[in-house]
Structures are given as structure tokens and as C-alpha cells.
């Protein structure tokens, strides 16, 4: 049964449907794999094996009665430790929520349960989704499955590493500035950041509410499509969630093969700071599409230089407000030193929150403070419009933009921890997408000479997830980098 863990979502779903194996057998294979390797990988923060096996057994019973709930029924799915799952711990990678137990299910969790998915484990992350390497988790640093001395990317570090390492079939992360796509790129899996409003944020711990979006990860574009289909759609509990028609993404992806789109290549994404092997691999991917009959055109996105400043002004401003709720009163941690109400607030936050979170709260407080609001926050909102307009101008000429996902492959642990600004720059190519609310996907397009995965990013027009998934699907059929297995 060990080779089950390397099956693609399509193979596993079909195997379950044809009763070639049961959900319990499949789930046990992933559990065994997790026990075997997670002491060194550290993708999981915790798991409830008994609960998970009960869900697998229930799936098998449904199937035996001819009452299968669909493609996802019986398939194990991992959750970033940012989604509320009733009765399970939710730490968000933070000491201040270390013992928090979710009182209800997030909408995405409810949808997964309704689809029969088997929820396997809580996956490590940078604290409150603030980070690009997992090194900001209060509990552990996840390793990259392709080189344990290197980071897996972040903040959905465990979500990407667990899928790449065969600990789970599919996973869910969140993407505020690249937190699904960048770790997907560094771990060699497929990760999608949907259009803002595609997936409900109810029950997902807030970092920067105007940018946060949940996103699926899998070893294939088909797996991502299947998960997206279950998760998308309106939710009365989240008014920012669009009232949209949810297509059959997987069927649409498979049926659209052969369709040719116009691709835009923004020159600004291929300049200084881009690793030469990353550049070469992405250019090969562009040549592949061109050879398939796609039209490739150069375009310009000159606002790229403002992306990181705008992001760190807007995201930290929203974070400073969202994280004010962690005050030592309601959410599990209260400083034992505190003797009065002011000390409860100050000492609980100071002891419970990590360095990067404090840094961002302080920065957010600064850009919102009297005298600096107009110069920073107000100005950043206007530049956000400039970035959006830049994309829309490009999309008047092309259907999809092609870029690297990350300027560099996975870097060594500790390499950027003493220089926050250097860490922020690793998200250069992903951040603008969140500021504009667009969909984007990262898929494996090659490996470096050291054997590290390289990711290619496709950015689409609003609500064009199907186009992105179709293009990734076409690429992986000809270049199955996504099916390579790390030597763990």
C-alpha cells in the first residue's frame, strides 16, 4: 500500500470509486508515511489519528451503500493550522493561541466534510501567516522535502511540504502575498491563489482581510481543480465572498486542452535579482507554450517596483487592527506575571506573540498613526489602484501573464532570518496579485542542478481560474516534474 501515497488525486479518487482500495487503507498509508518521516520534516503541528480514521471508515460505509459524496469522498486532505475545525486545536503557529480549541467549523472545513474528505492533521505555518520560510512558527521549522537543510517556503509551509513528501494527498493553505504559491514553488507542487472572493474566509484566522484568500495545493492541477470546486461559492457568513456560479473545474480543465491563449511576458519580472536557473526554466516553459501554438507577447508591468512597499503598508495596517483581539482576555494565553488589566494586555501580547508579528504590528501602527496616515496608508491605497490598472492594461492585450513564482529556489534555513527586508523581497513576484485580487497558480517547471524545484507562475484575469488550471494541466502532461518524488 506504500505506493498509494504517490498516486495523483485523479488516480486515488478513481481507485476509491472502483474499490481497488478503501479510504481506511489509503488514510493508513498516509498516516504511516507521516509517522515515518515527520520527525525530520516537521510539516505537522498535530493530528488526531482516531478522528481521521473514523472519517475514513464513514466514507467506506457510504461507498459500500452506494452513497458516495463525490470525487473527494475518502481522500485525505491536510489543513493549514489557520482554519477552524470544531473540537480541534487551532494555533495559527502562535504561542498566544497554543491551547485554543475551535468552537465551530470554518466554511471551507464544513464544505470538505460535506464532500466526504478525510481531514488529516494540522499543518505548520509561519505565525499568523506572516513569513516566507516557516521560521516564524512558534513551534517548529518545517524542512524542505528536497533538501532538509532548506526552507519549504511560507507561510503555508506544512501544506506544501506535506503534499510534496507524500504525507497527504491534498492540502489547503492561505495566500495573502504569495503564501500558497511560494511554498508550492519551493516544494515542487501545484498551488492556486483564487480570485479574491472565490472562497469563504469565515473561520479562517484573519491577517490582512482585504488580501487573505484560501488556496488549494496538490501534486497535479487536477487535484487543485477538484479541491477548488468543493471550496468555491457564496457564503452568507462572509459578505466578501462572491455570489458566483461554480463550474466543474476538473471537467472544464480536461475539456479545454488544446485551446490556445495569448500569453504576456512582463519584462520587469525577469530582471535583476532573478536566479539564472529559475529564469532558464521559466523561459523553457514559455517556449513550450509557444511551440504548442500559444501567442507570446512582451508586456510591461512597471508598477512592480511598488508592490512590496504597498503590500507591507496595507497588510501590516490591517494586521495591526486584526491582531488587537489577542489581548490576554479571551484567547487562551494570559501572562502569569500580569497583576492589573494594563499588564494583562501588554505582557500577554509581548510573551505570546513572536518577533515578526510584533514587527508587523508596530509597522502597521506606524503607517496608521497621526501624521503618517496620508503619507503611507493613503498613498499606498492609490498605488494599489496603479498596480490594478497596470494589470488591466496588460490584460487588454493578453489572456495570461507568465512569470517566475519566486526569484530564487528554496534557500538555506537561517539565511534570511536576521534581515526581515531581505525575506520580504523573496515575495516580489507574488504580492501584486493579492493587491489586485487576481487568480494565480504556481506549478513545477523544472529543477536546479542541486535538485531543488522551480515554480512557474501564471496570472489570470479575474475569475479565470479554469484557464490557469488548464495551462498547468497541459504543461504537466508533457513535463511531469510534479510527479518526481523526493528522496526522504
Amino acid at each position, binding site marked *: 500500500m506504500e505506493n498509494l501515497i504517490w498516486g495523483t488525486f485523479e488516480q486515488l479518487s478513481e481507485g476509491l470509486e472502483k474499490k481497488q482500495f478503501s479510504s481506511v487503507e489509503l488514510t493508513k498509508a498516509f498516516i504511516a508515511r507521516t509517522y515515518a518521516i515527520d520527525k525530520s520534516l516537521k510539516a505537522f503541528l498535530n493530528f488526531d489519528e482516531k478522528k481521521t480514521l473514523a472519517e475514513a471508515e464513514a466514507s467506506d460505509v457510504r461507498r459500500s451503500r452506494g452513497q458516495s459524496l463525490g470525487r473527494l469522498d475518502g481522500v485525505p486532505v491536510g489543513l493549514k493550522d489557520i482554519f477552524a475545525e470544531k473540537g480541534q486545536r487551532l494555533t495559527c503557529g502562535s504561542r498566544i493561541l497554543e*491551547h*485554543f*480549541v475551535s*468552537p*465551530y467549523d470554518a466554511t471551507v472545513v464544513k464544505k470538505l466534510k460535506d464532500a466526504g474528505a478525510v481531514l488529516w492533521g494540522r499543518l505548520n505555518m509561519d505565525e499568523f501567516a506572516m513569513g516566507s520560510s516557516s521560521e516564524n512558527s512558534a513551534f517548529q521549522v518545517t524542512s524542505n522535502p528536497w533538501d532538509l537543510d532548506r526552507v519549504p517556503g511560507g507561510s503555508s509551509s506544512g501544506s506544501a511540504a506535506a503534499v510534496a513528501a507524500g504525507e497527504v494527498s491534498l492540502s489547503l493553505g492561505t495566500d495573502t502575498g504569495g503564501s500558497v504559491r511560494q511554498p508550492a514553488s519551493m516544494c515542487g507542487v501545484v498551488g492556486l491563489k483564487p480570485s*479574491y*472572493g472565490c472562497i469563504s474566509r*469565515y473561520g479562517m484566522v484573519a491577517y490582512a482581510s*482585504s488580501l487573505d484568500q484560501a488556496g488549494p495545493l496538490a501534486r497535479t492541477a487536477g487535484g487543485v481543480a477538484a479541491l477548488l470546486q468543493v471550496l468555491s461559492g457564496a457564503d*452568507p457568513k*462572509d*459578505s*466578501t465572498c*462572491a455570489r*458566483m456560479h461554480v463550474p466543474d473545474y476538473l471537467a472544464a480543465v480536461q475539456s479545454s486542452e488544446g485551446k490556445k491563449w495569448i500569453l504576456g511576458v512582463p519584462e520587469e519580472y525577469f530582471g535583476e535579482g532573478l536566479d539564472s536557473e529559475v529564469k532558464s526554466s521559466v523561459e523553457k516553459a514559455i517556449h513550450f507554450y509557444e511551440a504548442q501554438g500559444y501567442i507570446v507577447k512582451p508586456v510591461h508591468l512597471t*508598477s512592480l517596483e*511598488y508592490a512590496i*512597499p*504597498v503590500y*507591507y503598508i496595507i497588510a501590516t495596517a490591517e494586521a*495591526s487592527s486584526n491582531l488587537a483581539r489577542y*489581548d490576554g*482576555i*479571551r*484567547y*487562551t*494565553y*494570559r501572562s502569569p506575571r500580569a*497583576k*492589573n488589566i494594563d*499588564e494583562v*494586555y501588554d505582557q500577554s*501580547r*509581548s510573551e505570546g*506573540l513572536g518577533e515578526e508579528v*510584533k*514587527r508587523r*504590528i*508596530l*509597522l502597521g*501602527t*506606524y*503607517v496608521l*498613526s497621526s501624521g503618517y496616515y496620508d503619507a*503611507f496608508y*493613503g*498613498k499606498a*491605497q*492609490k*498605488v*494599489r*489602484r*496603479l498596480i490594478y490598472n497596470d494589470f488591466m492594461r496588460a490584460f487588454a492585450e493578453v489572456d495570461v501573464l507568465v512569470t517566475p513564482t519566486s526569484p530564487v529556489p528554496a534557500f538555506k534555513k537561517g539565511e534570511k532570518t536576521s534581515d*526581515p*527586508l531581505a525575506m520580504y523581497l523573496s515575495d516580489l513576484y507574488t504580492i501584486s496579485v*493579492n*493587491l489586485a*485580487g487576481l487568480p494565480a497558480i504556481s506549478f513545477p517547471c523544472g529543477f536546479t542542478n542541486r535538485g531543488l524545484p522551480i515554480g512557474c507562475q501564471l496570472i489570470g484575469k*479575474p*475569475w479565470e481560474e479554469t484557464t490557469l488550471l488548464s495551462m498547468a494541466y497541459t504543461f504537466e502532461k508533457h513535463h511531469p516534474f510534479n510527479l518526481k518524488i523526493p528522496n526522504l
Partner: protein
Amino acid sequence: MMHSEIDIDHLAKLARIELDGHKRETFLNQLQDIVGYCSKVCEAGVENLEPRVHSFSHEGNFWAEDIPEYPEDGVDFLSRNAPEMKEKQIVVPRVL
């Protein structure tokens, strides 16, 4: 951006975060670098642009209120999560 323009002690007070001497200096230096980098937004020519305060690309229903649901056992769960409870009330230090 000048060093003196970031009043780190005032920011820490507003953010309810305690900073000791060493941390204070480290954060101040890092914030100075980051704010300096973020000052790049001041160079952008955006005089005639309206602010964009959201990421919507759809005809949103975003003026609608969220409709939350309260689980029946919500109080029990809240009890489990609050640091200190007494008779279904959250205990805080005396404020008067």
C-alpha cells in the same frame, strides 16, 4: 526616513507591546530600514487616482452584513478558551 521620525516607544504603547532595551534598538533599526524602503510609494505618480481599498473584481454583496451562526455549545467552548472563567463569565483583573 530619519531615525528620529520613528517614536518606537509611542508605537509600542499604542500597540500594547513591551520592548526591552535590546529589543527596542533592534526593532527600531529594522523598522527604520523597512519604513525607508516603503517610502518608495511617495515617488509614485498617483495624483489623479482614486484609492483602491479592496480586492474585489466582482459585483460584490460587500455592503451586506455577515450572517454568523452561534453554535449551541458556543459558551462551553468559549469557557475552554478563555484564560480564566468563573460562573460562565470571563475573569479579568479589577479595573476600578
